[in-house]
């Protein structure tokens, strides 16, 4: 039986959920259904859709929104926040280290091949000083819990995490559609996220920028699955949304073409993957990037957020070393737990994993989005047999973890209100002036009964997340 964040095993209600439990007593399914329909209309009108990769039609869908909010107490949030700050400080130090003096490798804490042979490690970044030493300006760290005490980090997502528009959209819906419930709580605001993001980006300007640096958001364009989010964030921050062809580099400086002539650009919040940002350095056929951008970055004339090569921490084997990194760089014990991880590259670990496949979750080392994974307890015999072969053929490409009994939250589904498994993606912002995290984040919910996969591409939905003062 999974830990339910509202209802205790003995039927009692956990303190943060007292108001929600009351409200659920008084509300009818018809009322909930009406609100759900209104929420869907809100998303549809707003054009908040996403494209599912691997879907033959490439069709745009609306991510289902569950209107029952998820509640975290201020005390729970304070613990989580401290852990996230510790984690992101460490990950930034690790990147500065592997692209710099490589102390952690010399100390033998992280095996060298996890750097040198990691496809997301960008050799081109070695020896460069990232402006202010910041590599990961924006992280979407996935958190799960299995009981009332501990938070586990599932993934660090240091490349270009998406989903923040769903966090903001969800809050808008809560306030509009459930004013009475919202008013009954003191909910910490998230609406200031765009301002916090802008402040973070501005603080990260190169040292030779003016006091009023120019920030732009670089998108791959309208065919990208997260284009809505790019345009939404640029709009909320009041910055230009640009594509590669809107920018150019001259003598190591990045400029934006404007009707008043070229304008210098100091900070690029880029939602274009590393491989495509500069055809002179990376993928030569890329039309999405800006030729010469990397040289401008190397010269310290522009900040890229996130820096190229941050994916080197997203590797799931590297993940398993983060607690050691925290001890190495900060001399502290990790505040957030790591999910125990078997590294299939280790023959003993592999043997254990092959012997216990039906109870484990097996993931590709570089996988994301819930693709290419095996959830043992929910898998068919054929799936397990397939993964057994894959593991034997290419063990270094996999890790395995115990199947966590993710916590559940009350959710409104077809047959009424029922517990469904959730995770949480807080958005952690790191600027030259400190770390900012708006309270809460994006709660993702596996709406299919019993499902543990919360990814939107796999039938997951979202919920608003309320951090409430007692």
């Amino acid at each position: 039986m999974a830990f339910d964040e509202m209802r205790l095993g003995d039927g009692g209600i956990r303190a943060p959920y007292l108001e929600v439990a009351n409200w659920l007593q008084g509300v009818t399914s018809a009322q909930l259904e009406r609100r759900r329909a209104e929420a869907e209309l809100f998303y549809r009108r707003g054009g908040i859709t996403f494209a599912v990769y691997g879907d033959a039609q490439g069709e745009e869908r609306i991510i289902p929104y569950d209107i029952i909010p998820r509640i975290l107490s201020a005390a729970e949030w304070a613990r989580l926040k401290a852990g996230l700050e510790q984690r992101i400080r460490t990950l930034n130090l690790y990147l500065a280290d592997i692209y710099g003096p490589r102390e952690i490798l010399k100390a033998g804490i992280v095996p060298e091949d996890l750097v040198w042979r990691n496809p997301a490690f960008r050799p081109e970044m070695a020896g460069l000083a990232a402006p202010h030493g910041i590599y990961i300006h924006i992280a979407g760290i996935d958190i799960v819990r299995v009981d009332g005490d501990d938070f586990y980090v599932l993934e660090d997502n240091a490349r270009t995490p998406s989903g923040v528009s769903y966090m903001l959209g969800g809050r808008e819906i809560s306030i509009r559609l459930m004013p009475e419930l919202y008013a009954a709580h003191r909910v910490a605001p998230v609406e200031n996220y765009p301002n916090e993001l802008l402040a973070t980006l501005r603080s990260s300007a190169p040292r030779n920028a003016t006091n009023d640096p120019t920030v732009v958001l670089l998108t791959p364009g309208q065919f990208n699955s997260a284009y809505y989010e790019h345009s939404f964030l640029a709009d909320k921050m009041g910055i230009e949304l640009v594509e590669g062809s809107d920018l150019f580099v001259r003598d190591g400086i990045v400029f934006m073409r404007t009707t008043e002539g070229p304008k210098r650009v100091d900070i690029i919040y880029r939602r274009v993957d590393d491989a495509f940002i500069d055809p002179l350095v990376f993928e030569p056929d890329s039309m999405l990037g800006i030729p010469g951008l990397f040289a401008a970055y190397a010269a310290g004339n522009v900040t890229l957020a996130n820096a190229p090569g941050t994916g080197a921490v997203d590797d799931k084997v590297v993940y398993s070393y983060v607690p050691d990194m925290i001890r190495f760089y900060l001399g502290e014990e990790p505040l957030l737990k790591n999910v125990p991880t078997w590294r299939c590259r280790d023959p003993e670990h592999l043997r254990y994993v092959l012997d216990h496949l039906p109870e484990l979750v097996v993931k590709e080392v570089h996988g994301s989005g819930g693709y290419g994974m095996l959830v043992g307890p929910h898998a068919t015999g054929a799936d397990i047999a397939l993964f057994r072969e894959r593991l034997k053929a290419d063990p270094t490409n996999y890790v395995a973890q115990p199947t966590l009994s993710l916590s559940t939250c009350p959710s409104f589904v077809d047959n009424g209100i029922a517990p469904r498994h959730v995770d949480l993606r807080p958005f952690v912002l790191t600027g030259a002036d400190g770390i900012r995290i708006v309270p809460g984040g994006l709660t993702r919910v596996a709406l299919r009964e019993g499902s543990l996969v919360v990814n939107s591409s796999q039938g997951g939905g979202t919920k608003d997340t309320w951090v409430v003062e007692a």
Partner: protein
Amino acid sequence: MLIHVRHRTRYIYDRPVHSMIQALRLMPRNHEGQYVRRWQIDLDQDGILRPGEDAFGNVLHMLSLEGPISGLCITVEGEVEMQDTNGIVRGALEKFPAELYLRDTPLTIADEAIIDFAKSVAAKAGGSELKILHALLAALHAEIVFDTQQTDTATRAIDAFKMKQGVCQDLSHIFIACARVLGIPARYVGGYLMRSDDNIHQEAGHAWAEAYVTGLGWIGFDPANGICPTESHIRVGAGLDYLGASPIRGARLGGRAEKMEVEVTVANTYQSDPAQQTRWSQPTAAIVQASQQFQA
């Protein structure tokens, strides 16, 4: 031996170019057996070459030009004092441990055919890494037909291997792919070769591979010639593949179609005579693959 190099790259555009930017890896560095006496890069356009160094230790110049530009000519000219080192590379600027050079890249990734080939060569050769690498060098030199028509700068090792044809770039990529399959770090080197047949006029620079042998360090292998580099091989750029060592990577705005002509002369300084100097002005123009174009 003092080797004189002249390398001219000329671009001619159908329409004036609005602006262009290029990354140039055209300057050799010193290491054991290679001492650069003098070397310069000249442009026929007003522009600043911003010198720097890439992550692999190559000299990198960035060039930005504002149009209208109807053509561009980049001339590299210099003299390098060379000594034979039996192919062993010592004293070069090394920014990474050898293990980095086990990484795959799209141009050098192996497929089943290359894996089978590499493993069978290794099994037959047996013995040390060095022995295996020499066997690989000989096998590729014998197996792949040198042909300038079938491949271009974007051809992958797996495609060239399938065709069993290619130029020095393709042979080097295949060699690198094979070495990495066998767990031997390998990298791509671009540079110049003074040919032994007195043919000092060439249509392109040269390329070969280097492999890291435990105990010996980096050793050059020139699969196009089936030999280890000699005092005739001037080493300019090194990287994971051609793209990392590419002499010129550029992008431009406007200009429509482009024609690129490359002339290279490599000669023993004391051999160059006035007759050859005059031949320089009427070279056979070799139109090679246009540099990649970037259109807004």
